[in-house]
């Protein structure tokens, strides 16, 4: 009997051990001390999944912030200040994000942080940054409670952390926009809702469900999938036998791509729609079955179509980064640039030097920044949310995401 219990013990141990390994980090651009070569060094922290299945998005975030920093240094955007990035890997694991946040807070040269990608990771980082008065700008978090408090759904808005800002619009905007498109433009009336139980996915699916029902649509069934699992055939068969004419998926592309593929394989010819979490080439490429007709909403207008973004795309290509800027490149660049602008304002107000309480001052200045960024006008409202509420619906056609409708959301 001793060996049986050893078996159980070891399986528990392995799970723990493998979770711990997720804490490793790569790419540590160490911030050097002050006054290196007559200038002050300001470090902008970056936290994103740089490895693992979401690394395609994370690398795009890191590179785009790096580009913003390079541009600022080249143009001498803030006289006497040289910017650097320190990029840490969170592997989309909340505990790793928290450890990274502590590490960034410990480096006194860090005056602002861009990241993370995942709302669930952000929840664990906000408190750490808040107690250190360190500003955080996420290019990709969309869960409303991060900026509007847990009771936003009941109409009570309370900003929980004054250090938290984001350049991405929230899921309230995105979920409602998706429901309206699916019901009105695509004419679907019976939807099956699946989510991945994560902060982002479950939140988005709930907002979508409410709006879809309010419009008069019918939710014929719900199910949940587990992140990193790959066999969803039982769920797919439930979708088929429910008679749904469409599926809404709250989650990320690794599970979304497989789910869509396995639903199509049952013979149910229904489109899968999701949020910006599935808007990635990997959603299509990872499964060979045609995803044509699947839909995704994403924040902002297509970067390629914005005049303001042409220069960003040009510079990104010229810089020769290995990975593409992906879905959040433009927002990451703007997030980095917002921190640079805040530092600029703080330095200008203090006779060209960084003040003693630079972190608190930068946080304060960040609330007031306003500039024309890659994704349009960049400024933050009283909750730290972006004032830019543009959205686009994309559709898979011939193995590519094609934008089908762009609009500015107003309830």
């Amino acid at each position, binding site marked *: 009997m001793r060996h*049986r219990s050893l*078996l159980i013990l070891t399986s528990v141990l392995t799970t723990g051990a493998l979770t711990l390994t997720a804490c490793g980090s790569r790419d540590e651009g160490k911030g050097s001390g002050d006054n290196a070569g007559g200038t002050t060094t300001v470090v902008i922290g970056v936290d994103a999944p740089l490895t693992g299945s979401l*690394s395609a998005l994370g690398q795009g975030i890191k590179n785009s912030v790096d580009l913003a920093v390079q541009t600022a240094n080249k143009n001498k955007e803030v006289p006497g200040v040289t910017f650097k990035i320190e990029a840490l890997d969170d592997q989309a694991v909340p505990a790793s994000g928290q450890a990274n946040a502590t590490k960034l807070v410990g480096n006194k040269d860090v005056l602002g942080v861009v990241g993370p990608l995942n709302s669930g990771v952000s929840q664990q980082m906000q408190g750490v940054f808040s107690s250190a008065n360190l500003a955080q700008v996420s290019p990709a978090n969309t869960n409303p409670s991060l900026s509007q408090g847990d009771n936003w759904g009941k109409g009570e808005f309370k900003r929980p952390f004054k250090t938290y800002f984001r350049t991405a619009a929230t899921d309230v905007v995105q979920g409602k926009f998706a429901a309206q498109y699916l019901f009105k433009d695509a004419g679907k009336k019976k939807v099956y809702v699946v989510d991945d139980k994560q902060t982002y996915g479950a939140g988005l699916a709930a907002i979508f469900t409410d709006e879809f029902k309010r419009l008069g649509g019918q939710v014929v069934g719900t199910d949940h999938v*587990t992140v990193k699992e790959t066999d969803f055939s039982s769920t797919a068969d*439930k979708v088929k*036998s429910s008679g749904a004419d469409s599926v809404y998926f709250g989650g990320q592309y690794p599970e979304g791509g*497989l789910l869509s593929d396995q639903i199509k*394989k049952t013979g149910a010819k229904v489109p899968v729609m999701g949020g910006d979490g599935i808007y990635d080439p990997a959603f299509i490429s*990872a499964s060979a079955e045609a995803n044509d007709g699947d839909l995704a909403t994403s924040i902002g207008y297509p970067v390629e179509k914005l005049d303001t973004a042409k220069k960003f795309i040009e510079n990104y290509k010229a810089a020769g980064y290995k990975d593409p800027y992906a879905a959040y490149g433009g927002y990451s660049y703007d997030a980095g640039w917002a921190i640079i602008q805040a530092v600029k304002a703080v330095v200008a107000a203090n006779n060209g030097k960084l003040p003693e309480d630079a972190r608190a001052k930068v946080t304060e200045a960040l609330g007031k920044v306003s500039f024309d960024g890659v994704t349009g006008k960049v400024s933050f409202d009283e909750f730290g949310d972006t004032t830019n509420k543009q959205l686009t619906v994309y559709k898979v056609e011939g193995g590519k995401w094609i934008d089908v409708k762009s609009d500015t959301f107003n309830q």
Partner: protein
Amino acid sequence: MHELPQQLANGLALGALYGLIAIGYTMVYGIVQLINFAHGEIFMIGGFGALTTYTALPSGTSLLVAIPLMILGGAIASVAVATAAERFAYRPLRGAPRLAPLITAIGLSIALQQLVWQFYPDAKKAVSFPEFKGEAFQITDGLQIQRADAFILALAPLCMLALGLFVSKSRSGRAMQATAQDPDTAKLMGINTDRIIVMAFAIGAAFAAVAAVAYGLDKGQINFEMGFILGLKAFTAAVLGGIGNIYGAMVGGVVLGIAESLSIAYIEDIPGMQQLGGGAWSNVWAFVLLILVLLVRPQGLLGERVADRA
């Protein structure tokens, strides 16, 4: 309940996959009492080996020609890594306390994942794997079998049959049984136990490669992390069926697969259980089943009572 045959078929195909991987856990445990936690990664490497073989083939090769070659290529990769792991990581620790090789296996598992992540081109995210073209087989109105599922449902029994014959009839197979029963006496009888142990690792790895090809053909993608959860499930299947027993591994896999797919489909229909059903809870129900079985039969479904090792 009209979709019951379909859900059973889904569970059977998933279970056959678990079973093929579980063979690797059970054979190694049966002979050296080592839980080879790196076996999930051996499975993953089998998948990447098969994909490499496929990319090396001239484009336009029919999948029917490619599949045997892919299995071969995957098996070469996985067997090479598994036997190297045995030779350089586990053999030096054979006399060491039980926990040392176990921790080594965990370390090896992490190392293998990171190596593939780092060095296989484009493996930092999921990479596409060839898929069967064409519609699923429509058996009856309520039952269709995906081509990839049919593939594994046909292949798994064949593999089991071959393994069963090998273990019971061949000289090496009987030597393997002898080593499992009592390694020291087997050695005295002139059996090269080191060779037998390597063979157990190799057979497990080859089965994992077959499973990896079936998995890739079904999902259309493989990734460097795929061995972790599947490995854990397969290990569970091996324990459920009775670890050390090769038929137990397959039975355990099938029971686990069917339990998962039925719990996804039907638990939520039970009045009052709506919150506890669906894909979110399938793993919970699978492990509830495991605990129930182990309470009644600590040796697993087909396990034999091994008094001397308890």
